[in-house]
């Protein structure tokens, strides 16, 4: 029990105490109070940092081949063993993390940017613009997304930049819908009229006054969207239509795994485990943010 200084009625660290003496928790501390979400966030940061600094953690390059150790089991030299070509698995996991995280990040950025742009157009201008964009949302929700992804990725012939564009281009709908409905609610507010009468242009009203209020739900959907983008990228790469080898991603490291399942099981398990862990972490962080922002939902 922390002692509050009596004369001011405030505790020493300056936070307000309600009558019961409990601390009022802000969203940040509510987020970190939930242990799974905070562990998940730390895990994501850890993996991202280690992948980014990959050369510091391993003496090998991602495509270095050790001919004396093909499909070897873990040894002091190769911590996780090697794959069917004699490449160090641990090294490839680190470098694979770089590309997997980067591609997922770029995909989410593309998707969220598209969603915000289209959603604010629809929610702000309404009328015909809204009808067209709502129709586009319905159209994109009526296509078999994964099939379209496969076709588009195969048309892109494994180009690195095509994958984030394609994934982002098929996952903007939820963000657009969130932004649209939030802006619809806010459109009638008096401060919008006030800003308009002061001569603020459309872009200024949307960007300065309306979008910041739609940011929180968008953050939650982007966090969960990261997990989905990673699942999409890895699935594409697994099937051979995503990022092409020898550039390693956790997905394409698995595409040969089935043939060598018996001889090098670790090569099949570890990349998938990384995808699983990172996706689970992003989903946990997403629900953590949601919980922190709306504690009454629980």
């Amino acid at each position: 029990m922390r002692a509050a200084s009596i004369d001011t009625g405030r505790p020493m660290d300056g936070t307000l105490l309600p009558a019961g003496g409990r601390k009022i928790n802000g969203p940040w501390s509510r987020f970190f109070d939930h242990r799974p979400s905070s562990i998940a966030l730390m895990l994501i940061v850890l993996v991202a940092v280690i992948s980014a600094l990959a050369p510091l953690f391993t003496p090998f390059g991602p495509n270095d081949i050790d001919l004396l150790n093909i499909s070897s089991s873990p040894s002091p030299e190769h911590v996780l063993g090697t794959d069917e070509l004699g490449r160090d698995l641990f090294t490839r996991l680190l470098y694979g993390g770089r590309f997997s995280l980067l591609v997922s990040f770029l995909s989410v950025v593309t998707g969220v940017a598209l969603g915000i742009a289209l959603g604010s157009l629809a929610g702000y201008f309404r009328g015909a613009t809204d009808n067209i964009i709502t129709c586009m949302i319905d159209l994109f929700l009526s296509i078999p997304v994964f099939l379209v992804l496969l076709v588009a990725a195969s048309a892109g012939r494994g180009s690195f930049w095509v994958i984030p564009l394609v994934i982002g281009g098929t996952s903007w709908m939820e963000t657009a819908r969130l932004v649209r409905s939030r802006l619809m609610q806010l459109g009638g507010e008096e401060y919008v009229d006030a800003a308009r009468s002061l001569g603020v242009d459309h872009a200024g009203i949307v960007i300065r006054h309306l979008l910041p209020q739609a940011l929180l739900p968008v953050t939650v959907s982007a966090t969960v969207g990261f997990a989905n983008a990673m699942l999409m990228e890895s699935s594409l790469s697994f099937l051979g239509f995503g990022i092409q080898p020898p550039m390693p991603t956790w997905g394409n490291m698995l595409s040969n795994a089935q043939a060598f399942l018996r001889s090098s099981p670790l090569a099949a398990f570890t990349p998938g485990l990384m995808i699983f862990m990172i996706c689970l972490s992003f989903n946990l962080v997403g629900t953590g943010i949601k919980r922190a922002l709306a504690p009454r939902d629980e």
Partner: protein
Amino acid sequence: MGYVLLRRLVYTVPLVVLVSMVTFGFLHLAPGGPVGVMTGNPKVTGEDLDRIASNYGLDRPVPVQYLCWFRQVFLRFDFGRSYVTGRNVSSMILERIPATLELMLSAFVLAIIAGGITGIVSAVKKGSLVDQVLSVVTMAGMSVPVFWLALVAIYVFSLNLGIFPAGGRSAVGVDGSVADRIRHLVLPASVLSLVYLASWSRYIRDGLIEAFNGEFIRTARAKGLGEWTVIMKHSLKNAVLPALTVMLMQLPTLFTGAVITETVFSWPGMGRLFFEGLQRQDHTRVLGIMVISSLLIILFNLAGDLLGMAIDPRIDKGRSSLPGAKIEKRSAAIT
């Protein structure tokens, strides 16, 4: 109500046309185009390509081609011939439907049973250890890459334990034995059902918890009904219908299959038919399967919306809410 219904029905027509147009254009503009598969063959000269293209009518303007194709597909249900096998795409698809139905239906049934039970348990024991464990499990189901889950299942159950076969629909030679077919079905169906179960369990849990807060449940408890009757009869009815709408929207995959799972387990279904078509640049086959999938999605979305309106007739009539806006539509899981 009648107006909203009519609007929703009418809205479907332009959506179908638009989706077919976009899919057709998208595939035609892709590099290589319809005869792309033949350009790699050194024996096929430029003249041959032109001749083949004009035989298939590919030298006409794209809009004309689209109109012919649209008439062919929507009036005669004819998806044309495969450029690779020369066979009719419709019959290739019809061949694969039984295998896909068998796999997807078993996965769905498994997921409904398991998802229902876990959903009810975690709603009733809300906040308990069981609920927390189950919520992590369902979240894991949403985060796991299905191809990896399949690989792990194959490694554990076929390579090490040797209980189930690693792939295929039946062993060579013992075609038709029910026990053998079931043994082949167990792994792919369980892997798939885990993915579906994750989201469905959550919908049932959240729906039930919402129902528990309703005043009619307090009334039911107040008049002395047993807990079992309250849960099963009064709450579940209200919780199941929203979950049902969500499931309904995932039903198209019953026919279009699961590309990844079918590929890993070499299951001879629609998903693999599509994947092989894509690898071999079989333009008509890919186009056909994509259009069928889209039509089914539109159809089941419509059904879901109608069901939603039937459940909740208070559905917003305001002009800001477009038909069906009440129900969260999401793209299906990657399977």
